[in-house]
């Protein structure tokens, strides 16, 4: 089977569909039991759940350090994680182009299974649709996720106050640069891998410290700038960021300088922004730095007031400028 290509017949519900599901998905996701029903039937503990969905496109589908399958699992796990939940169950919906190599599909599904295992989440339901060749760039994956919010550990954005620390769990923008490089748009400038990873194992360590975390967000599309502006506006916080404290790898900075991009708007797929009570910042930072993913974590700024939600970036020279949402898209400049 793995030498074959996906055809429209795989989507007709017959023997081929069954074979594709059984051989590619059910075995890897280990949901033989759930697959006997039309829906996964799951036990839900007391209290609140978190529920999210996201549809993933990635061009190309395989990037250094990341493929669309890994991204689709990590992305949804991360949305649950930064919402304060313990990720439990995922669904995976595939839209696949006719002619897509089964071998590549297997690689993608393997990456999903491996990524799910890191956080102890189970992929319990799925769906496949086959569409005409040349319409969607290979494969699109939707994942939905359910997580459980433990009552003793919830986020408290309403408690955000002056002095709270803004922490980022590592250098920003790696994913965006890895994608640009994979598209061949950077020549041989860099082979930096994407930072795509599930945040749950790292955040679990932070939660175990018992620190008062006000809020978390993962700076994906729109980058760190957008994540901070959203936090500031949604909760009426004035956030001040020290430009020189924001961790950025030299490769990312170099690409941005050459092309005229701003790394603050570059996507990361394995980073978290945490707003933490001032007194708890040191132990949160320590817990992060004890993990592989968080070893370059840094305090990048503070909440400096409440009221009008805005983000200020303080330069090394002490001048402050307002950070705004990205206007349109980032475009490479002339020279």
């Amino acid at each position, binding site marked *: 089977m793995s030498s074959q290509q996906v055809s429209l017949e795989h989507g007709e519900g017959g023997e081929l569909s069954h074979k594709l599901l059984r051989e590619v998905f059910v075995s890897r996701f280990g949901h033989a039991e759930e697959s006997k029903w039309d829906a996964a039937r799951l036990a839900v503990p007391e209290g609140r759940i978190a529920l999210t969905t996201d549809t993933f496109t990635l061009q190309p589908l395989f990037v250094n350090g990341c493929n669309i399958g890994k991204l689709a699992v990590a992305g949804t796990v991360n949305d649950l994680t930064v919402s304060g939940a313990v990720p439990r169950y995922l669904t995976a919906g595939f839209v696949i182009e006719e002619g897509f190599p089964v071998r590549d599909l297997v690689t993608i599904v393997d990456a999903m299974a491996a990524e799910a295992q890191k956080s102890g989440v189970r992929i319990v339901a799925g769906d496949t649709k086959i569409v005409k060749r040349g319409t969607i760039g290979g494969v699109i994956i939707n994942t939905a996720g359910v997580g459980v919010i433990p009552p003793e550990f919830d986020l408290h954005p309403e408690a955000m106050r002056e002095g709270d620390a803004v922490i980022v769990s590592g250098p920003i923008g790696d994913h965006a640069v890895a994608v640009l490089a994979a598209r061949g*748009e950077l020549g041989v400038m860099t082979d*930096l*891998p994407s930072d795509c990873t599930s945040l749950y194992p790292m955040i679990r360590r932070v939660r175990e410290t018992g620190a008062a975390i006000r809020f978390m967000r993962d700076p994906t599309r729109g980058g760190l700038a957008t994540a901070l502006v959203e936090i500031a506006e949604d909760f009426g916080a004035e956030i001040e960021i020290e*430009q*020189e404290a924001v961790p950025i*790898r*030299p*490769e990312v900075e170099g690409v941005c*300088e050459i*092309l*005229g991009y701003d790394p603050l708007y570059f996507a990361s797929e394995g980073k978290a922004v945490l707003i933490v009570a001032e007194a708890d910042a040191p132990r949160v930072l320590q817990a992060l730095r004890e993990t592989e993913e968080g070893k*370059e974590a840094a305090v990048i700024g503070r909440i400096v007031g409440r009221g009008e939600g805005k983000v200020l970036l303080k*330069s*090394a*020279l*002490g*001048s402050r*400028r*307002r950070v*705004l949402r990205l*206007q*349109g898209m980032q*475009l*490479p*400049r*002339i*020279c």
Partner: protein
Amino acid sequence: MDTAVRSPLAAALAQTKDPVLARRLLDRVKDLAERFIARHGRPAAIMEVCGSHTHALAETGVKDALRGAVRLISGPGCPVCVTDQAEIDAMIALAEGQGRIIATFGDMLRVPGSRGSLMKAKVEKGADVRVVYSPSDAVRIAAEHPDREVIFLGVGFETTIPILAAAVAEAEALGLRNFSLWMSTNLVEPVMRHLLESGEVRIDGFLLPGHVATVIGRQGFLFLAEEYRKPGVIAGFEVNELLSSLYLLLELLLAGRAEVLNNYPSVVREDGNPAARRLMERYFVPVDQPWREMGIIPQSGMDFREAYARFDAKRKFPVRVGKPKPTACRCGEVIRGLIEPDACPLFGRACTPEHAIGPCMVSSEGACAAHYKYLRA
């Protein structure tokens, strides 16, 4: 994983943006600036003639930190901004023609024309407009699509003109008949002379463009000192390169010395890059060029030599456009350094990066975009 490069070069580069050094340099620049004010009763007026400097001065906070101490004036250094409106309109009309692929640098995409923009032509009229990083990418597209005409929008200064020439050389070597350039280029020296001779704006000295200087060298700016008695310092783009260049320039001003210094010697040579100049001169010759709101400046752009007319999009695809629609945009005064962006009544109200009325609000190198993003109160 730590992927930081540890080398002497990396250490030297880190120096260019070291924050502690930056604060020390700033203090020293301020000292000299105060001495200039004490002597002349006004801050020194220093013009940067490079869009990347405009952006860097704002982004690093240098401009803000020197508010009141030095008058930093943005000059005509943003290629998109200085391009004549009729040229912009013609490029948009060109894109709407059938069977064409328009390849362009990204910041042309949203420049407003009298009607629409390249982005609008792409989205609303289905024009095939593609953003590329280099004109060579456009040559590759032409080779891949022999049945389509591929036109690259050749906008830029001396930094860009040699790579335009290199693209023509590639197309020539490949024997491509479906590749052409729409030339709308600008030269730094003629526009600087134009500004100095117009006397519209008082300029004490110039922060000179590091990138252009890689091509024309320090020697390309000697006319400033020799003919106009104005000092200039060729500067890099990091915070400490900007501050140290301003320091040197203020020193020259206080000493009354009209000299041109190269403060970017790691990149800029005395004679620049003769090979790049030879390449551009092989295909192009200086021509009279229209500039936005400055009219035609003699010999201030480059266009195809007769022998290479087959690569000239203007001859292959004659486009007729009407007179540009006038707007209240004061971009023309901004690029000549006559007004600050926020003196324009449209700034930040009718004209924002989302809904730009003039090109200075579109390009990341434009004075209005830099002011909007970094310097608004």
